[in-house]
């Protein structure tokens, strides 16, 4: 690590810092140009440049919060696994949530970048593949007992060996998914994105010299650390704590499941203590340490919107997730795919409440829970009886702010870059007809500054067989709450009509129906 002093002249530093952001944004553009998965096309992907130790040098300007806070961990996992054996032209894949990844669908492609034979950085591209195998289409089995029901686990593996594509390895992975050709297409799109980063970094090395570039990698992190610490040191010292809940744990039958977040500002450091959180639950609403770390980062970062995010930001935070085995630090083989509606989102909303006390001028109450509805089965429109996956995430409301109502019908805290999917795209891909999609009036929490309203959406399946429906969401009982006297919002939920309009089966939380 460098001394923290800036040695580059201000012009070179600013030019290179901007160039790094541009490079990561170019990776994003490249993925959009050639990707296959509708999920990725709707912007469920992120990219980063990492240093040879795996630390994040720079994120892009439109990346998904949840991924970004974990990209350094999977980069480190690749470095740990291959270290000195990495060679120019190699590319690696990894999706392992137990070494810092998020869930199995988030596949990361990591390319080490060499200049004259020396490793100078890594380019990493994360994309949410539409399916990773497991027991249900789309790999969101809400009742999964463990990883084996969820999907293929990819430890760090080499998919390009000194420039030669190892199609056998990639085919082995994608053959365990329900959309092998699309999965391989997304893999290649991500590989090319890292190739874009390599060409650009090497161009910078030619122009400025390798030493300058490598120095800028360190100093970009030092810069963010300096900025973050300065901001923190201007805030009052103190401790704040709150808890949010998972709706219930089927293994325990009754009672909300607490996630406890304690935050301490101490000089120029923020400490988080989540060690009092509940043991892992018997559903997929658990989180590996990477995703919980990311929840803390994303929650904090919301209150420092103009600070760029890289590992320098992480250095100003001290995060204790407690021992392995809790719902915020789940160990293999605990099911974790629902982390995004579970601990990740709960931690983020809890930190909104804590930071609202520290910075009342920026105060904001809890935002809606990620609502992922995934229906899959046989598409009988197609003479080959192909598998369809209707993959839907809902728009919703954010918490009321100090001086302003919350935003209506917008993207989840999971990632504000996540686009609402076009209905006509969904209807083309899947045998579904959308019956309604509208903002639900007065569903946000009442108060002086109201929470934003959520939406209701309905669809009718047409030509299908063997359908499975998974609903990933967790705010039927532990509804989003208000702060400073504001009241809670409407609960989230889903219901299913089988054949008639009258019959309704509603669900308390995260059901699977077959």
């Amino acid at each position, binding site marked *: 690590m460098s001394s923290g002093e*800036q040695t580059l*002249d*201000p*012009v070179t*530093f*600013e*030019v290179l*810092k*901007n*160039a790094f952001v*541009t490079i990561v944004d*170019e990776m994003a*553009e*490249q993925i*959009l*140009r*050639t*990707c*296959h998965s*509708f999920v990725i*096309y709707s912007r469920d992907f992120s990219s980063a440049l990492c240093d040879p130790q795996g630390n994040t040098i720079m994120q892009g300007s439109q990346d998904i919060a949840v991924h970004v806070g974990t990209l350094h961990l999977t980069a480190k996992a690749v470095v740990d696994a291959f270290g000195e054996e990495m060679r120019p032209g190699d590319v690696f894949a990894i999706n392992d949530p137990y070494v810092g990844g998020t869930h199995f669908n988030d596949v990361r492609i990591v390319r080490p970048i060499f200049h004259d034979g020396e490793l100078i950085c890594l380019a990493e591209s994360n994309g949410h593949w539409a399916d990773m195998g497991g027991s249900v289409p789309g790999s969101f089995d809400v009742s999964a007992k463990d990883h084996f029901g969820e999907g293929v686990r990819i430890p760090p593996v080499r998919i390009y060996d000194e420039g030669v594509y190892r199609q056998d390895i990639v085919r082995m992975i994608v053959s365990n998914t329900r959309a092998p*050709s*699309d999965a*391989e*297409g997304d893999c*290649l799109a991500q*590989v*090319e994105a890292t*190739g*874009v980063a390599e060409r650009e970094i090497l161009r910078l090395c030619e122009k400025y010299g390798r030493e300058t570039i490598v120095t800028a990698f360190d100093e970009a992190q030092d*810069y*963010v650390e*300096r*900025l973050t610490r*300065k*901001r923190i040191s201007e805030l009052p010292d103190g401790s704040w704590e709150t808890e949010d809940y998972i709706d219930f744990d089927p293994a325990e039958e009754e009672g909300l499941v607490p996630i406890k977040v304690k935050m301490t500002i101490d000089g120029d450091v923020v400490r988080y203590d989540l060690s009092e959180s509940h043991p892992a639950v018997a559903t997929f609403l658990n989180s590996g340490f990477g995703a919980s770390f990311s929840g803390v980062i994303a929650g904090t970062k919301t209150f420092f919107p103009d600070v760029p995010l890289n590992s320098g930001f992480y250095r100003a935070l001290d995060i204790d997730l407690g021992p392995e085995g809790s719902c915020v630090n789940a160990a293999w083989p605990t099911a974790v795919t629902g982390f995004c509606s579970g601990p990740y989102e709960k931690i983020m909303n809890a930190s909104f409440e804590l930071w609202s006390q520290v910075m009342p001028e920026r105060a904001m109450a809890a935002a809606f829970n990620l609502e992922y509805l995934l229906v899959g089965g046989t598409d009988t429109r197609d003479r080959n009886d192909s598998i369809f996956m209707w993959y839907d995430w809902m728009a919703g409301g954010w918490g009321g702010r100090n001086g302003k109502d919350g935003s209506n019908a917008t993207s989840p805290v999971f990632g504000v870059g996540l686009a*609402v999917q*076009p*209905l*006509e*795209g969904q209807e*083309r891909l899947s045998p579904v007809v959308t019956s309604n999609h509208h903002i639900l009036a007065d569903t946000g929490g009442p108060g002086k500054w109201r929470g934003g309203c959520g939406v209701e959406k309905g669809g009718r399946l047409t030509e299908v067989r063997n359908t499975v429906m998974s609903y990933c969401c967790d705010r039927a009982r532990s509804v989003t709450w208000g702060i400073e006297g504001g009241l809670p919002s409407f609960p989230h939920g889903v219901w299913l009509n089988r054949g008639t309009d009258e019959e309704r089966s509603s669900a308390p939380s995260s059901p699977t129906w077959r």
Partner: protein
Amino acid sequence: MREILEEELDGTLITTSSDVLPEIFEHERFSTTIANAVLQPLVGRYVRDLESELRSGGYEGDLVILHSGGGVMTPETADRWAVRLAGSGIAAGAIASRHIGQLCGFENTIGFDMGGTSTDISLVYEGEARTTNEWAVQYGYPIRFPSIEVLTIGAGGGSLAWIDEAGSLRNGPRSAGADPGPACYGQGGREPTNTDANLVLGRLGTELIAGAMTLDRGRAEQALSMRLSEPLGLGLTEAAEAVVAVANANMADAIRLISVRRGYDPREFALVCFGGAGPLHGAALARELAIPTVLVPPNPGTTSALGCLLVDIRHDFLTLLLGTLDDVDPEEVEREFGRLEEQAVERMRAEGVTSEKVELQRTIDMRYAGQWRSIAVPVDGEVTSLDDLARTFEDEHDRQHSYRREGSPIEIYRLNLRAVGATQKAELARHEGQGSMPEPIARRPVHFGGGDALETPVYRRADVPAGASFDGPAVLEQLDSTVLVPPGGRVAVDEWLNIRMTIEEAR
């Protein structure tokens, strides 16, 4: 539905999405249609007023209006598809840059239009301006019409240079605008801008617009020294050079996005510099990007407007046709193109262009089955087989994205037809001459970066005749711009009074 509404709502303008944009994806279609509905009354009234004013002023010629796709249309068509005017202003700059490139023998140009608050960058390859369907107006509302692709960034003469809390030098996107404007305007601006830095470096003179405006060098120095050189521990000149270097790097990054990242090599292009500030920064950008030639038209400040005089009547037609190559019947493709061509000829007839004067260009959007974006593959003549198209697609995919998927099914997505009806173009005046250089009107020290100031001759551009040639360093001042020729730049002035500057290899 339109008919019912028109009958029930007498006199109300009706816009339907099936007329404006008969295409998949509700958000884009809706947004484009709404934009049309909003613009229709404004554009309609404006065009009618314009037409009547022109007539009463004695103008008897045709009136045509530029659209964002880089063609013109009649007032009647503009009235119906008003949204096609959105983004047309910046498209004009791209057209002008294409024209100037062609006059000078360059089929590949990058248009660099730098004004007071922003910079517009466009790209012309093999004589065609790049177009895109993926763009949006303010607040992110998409307009899904094929339009000339222009990348706009917040960098202009008035962009502010500042130091952030962690001590790092930044430039833009905030701008001093016209009011208060740069510090040197003396209208109350206290923060340094690119214009202030250029003034302190001697690149700009203290008089602009032929003396109609005086710049206050003292105020520029004060802003730079208080806001930048003192906090950063730099000398005044170094601080000014730093400001310009950061601005140039940001603009170079934007040019890379539109060129290198699309598989275009800047070394095969000429950089056409216009807008008030373009000719001041162009040479440095060319050097940074290894672009060998810089072109500066005679009137950089009005070059964009010139673009409007250089276009044909042009309309785009499309139809969705989805299927993998194995499933699609070439005869059906041909039939659909035939249908589009009938529409095109019909529309052009309505625009007053007879069918023998209409040029039709076909492309097919293709992609690997499962991809979301496609590549437009040009089609020559009648479609009898799709095999050649598949090969062209795979080559183009490889060129743009560095890989191909051997044996993977290829899909057709959409058929596009562009109809072009040639119109009479403005002809630019040609000047004879083996002109020799006039005497400079002044000499002043100019900093060109990294080193001492060079005593540099300053010419009035209007005095520099066709056929003249000279080497940098030099400054050319004119009413609407200032041209900076750095050491190592070699200039020849052509018969249209364009400056053609060749740049020594980047260091």
